[in-house]
């Protein structure tokens, strides 16, 4: 009953001489918010990308809800209800906000127009996109039809977060979703993350913001030098402990070691 949503063992990913993931383990449990912290270049983005099929690991096995998977593209992960907010957002700058929210799962008009002429139902997509962005409350955009390239960095991040939250059914990976956001907008995203958890959907949250991590996380996965160093309960440790483990200033206690 309590099979982990994601269970990864011995994941390895090398880029030439650089080892981005050095035989790392990973575990996401049902209904939890798992924060992933670590220095720049520790390999946080690399390991979540390996989980969702955006990169293909050289070795290791990944189980989703107990079943082994080998994604060859992020599209396959997406079809299982896994959504990702990439660190670089992965939006198409020249397309509109609505187009971006629906890339790869566009709504078509009903009847002949949609089935035969493949016509998009733009009004429906725009309405949905507007609702989702309003829910997030972080959009001060002028028009849902405006190209994403005319948005500020934070607004773009808002679009990517809204897209993931709107379509995820299994779990969401967010790679630094608040990095570009203002105080108010960050708060909205944190509330959104909690709302998503309340719906029973677990979240992997990569962040460098310790107060955010300690506020929302149920467990904290500390990544160091390409692998999981330990997993801690934020209630048992302080932020400075976490930073000390992450940077190698202090050894984590044996019970938490990966």
């Amino acid at each position, binding site marked *: 009953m309590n099979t982990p949503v994601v269970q990864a063992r011995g994941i390895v990913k090398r880029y030439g001489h650089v080892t981005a993931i050095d035989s790392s383990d990973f575990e996401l449990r049902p209904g939890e918010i798992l924060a992933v912290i670590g220095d720049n270049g520790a390999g946080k983005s690399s390991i979540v990308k390996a989980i969702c099929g*955006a990169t293909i690991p050289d070795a290791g096995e990944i189980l989703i809800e107990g079943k082994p998977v080998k994604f060859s*593209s*992020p*599209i396959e992960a*997406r079809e299982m209800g896994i959504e*990702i907010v*990439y660190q*670089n*957002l*992965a*939006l*198409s*700058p*020249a*397309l509109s906000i609505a*187009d*971006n929210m629906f*890339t*790869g*799962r*566009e709504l*078509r008009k009903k009847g002949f127009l949609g089935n035969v*002429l*493949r*016509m*998009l139902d733009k009004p429906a997509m725009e309405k949905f996109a507007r609702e989702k962005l309003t829910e997030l409350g972080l959009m*001060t955009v*002028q028009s849902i039809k405006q*190209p994403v*390239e*005319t948005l500020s960095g934070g607004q773009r991040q808002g679009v990517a977060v809204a897209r993931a939250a709107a379509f995820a059914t299994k779990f969401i990976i967010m790679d630094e979703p608040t990095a570009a956001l203002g*105080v*108010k907008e960050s*708060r909205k995203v*944190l*509330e959104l993350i*909690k709302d998503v958890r309340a719906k029973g959907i677990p979240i992997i949250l990569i962040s460098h913001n310790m*107060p955010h991590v300690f*506020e929302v996380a149920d467990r904290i996965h500390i990544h160091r030098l390409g692998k999981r160093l330990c997993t801690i309960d934020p209630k048992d440790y302080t932020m400075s402990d976490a930073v000390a483990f992450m940077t190698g200033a202090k050894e984590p206690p044996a019970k938490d070691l990966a």
Partner: protein
Amino acid sequence: MSENGSSASVGQDFEKKLDESDKSIASFNVKATSPFERIQHVLHNNPTLVPVIVLMLSLVVFGLIAGGKFFSAFNLSLILQQVSIIGILAAAQSLIIITAGIDLSVAAIMVLMSVVMGNLAVFMGVPTVLALFVGMAGGVGAGLMNGWFITRIKLPPFITTLGTWSIFYALLLWLSGAQSIRGQDIDTNAPFLKFFGESFNIGGARITLSAILMILVFLALWYMLNKTAWGRHVYAIGDDKEAAELSGIRTDRTLLSVYGLAGFICALGGWASIGRVGSISPQSFYEGNLDSITAVVIGGISLFGGRGSIMGALFGALIVGVFRSGLRLSGVDVLWQVFAIGWLIIIAVAIDQWIRRVSA
């Protein structure tokens, strides 16, 4: 902060003031911009506006210089007829350029397929409809071959199509024996090959079916690019292929379909060219590849991909036609026509760069 429920109460100290923050939807006080910047913005949102304006202006200018000769219904319809084949190639070319690719083989595919259709229908007694079908399928195949090298072997489009241009050109010389198929032979054996050379008159204008075909091709592509998911994907791939892949687009499959469709349009152009030229000549449209790129660029479609409307290429082709006709009727030497087209290209790209700076 407790009045805001439990969830927010764990927020940080500095967030306390958030509750008092302005809740109204942001209204933008549109900052006073120079007319120059405003034009830049309008053009950025409507990339086809530039070629439309240039087309209108050139019509007016040549109308003034060359007078009634130029502005007659007959001459205008002649321009339409003259640009129809390059226009069809430009439609195929735009599709590929929007994906941030380039196709140097469009004209070679077109002429090759017209030779295939001609050989089958005129010399080998194959029913014309079947010959046309083989030609169209060959066009799709040639396009898919380009697409296969580009998506599977990961070769750059420029190099791939430079190579296939030579390959297709050599094939067409071989198949044709470097000989033209004469118009009389087509008329007696397979007159339907010349279908798109048919024309009808309205009010002094002589509209050929090849011109109608060109316009239909553009309208169909416009619909596909703007009203279907496939079209959105084509733009997204040209914009940022990696982001498109990550956001759920099967980029290679879409690219393959783009090259296949472009090949089909080229073959269609091959059929239309038989009617337009009246014979099948392996030497025709040798510069068609570059002419199609010229039309696309003048039409404001960015060579960097992801930007510009397909209709721009139609206007681009028309602008070239209007310049050629206008300069000729004004008594200007051919070499200066070529000179003028060269400047048009450079100015068009400069304007594209300027417009793109809006987003930076």
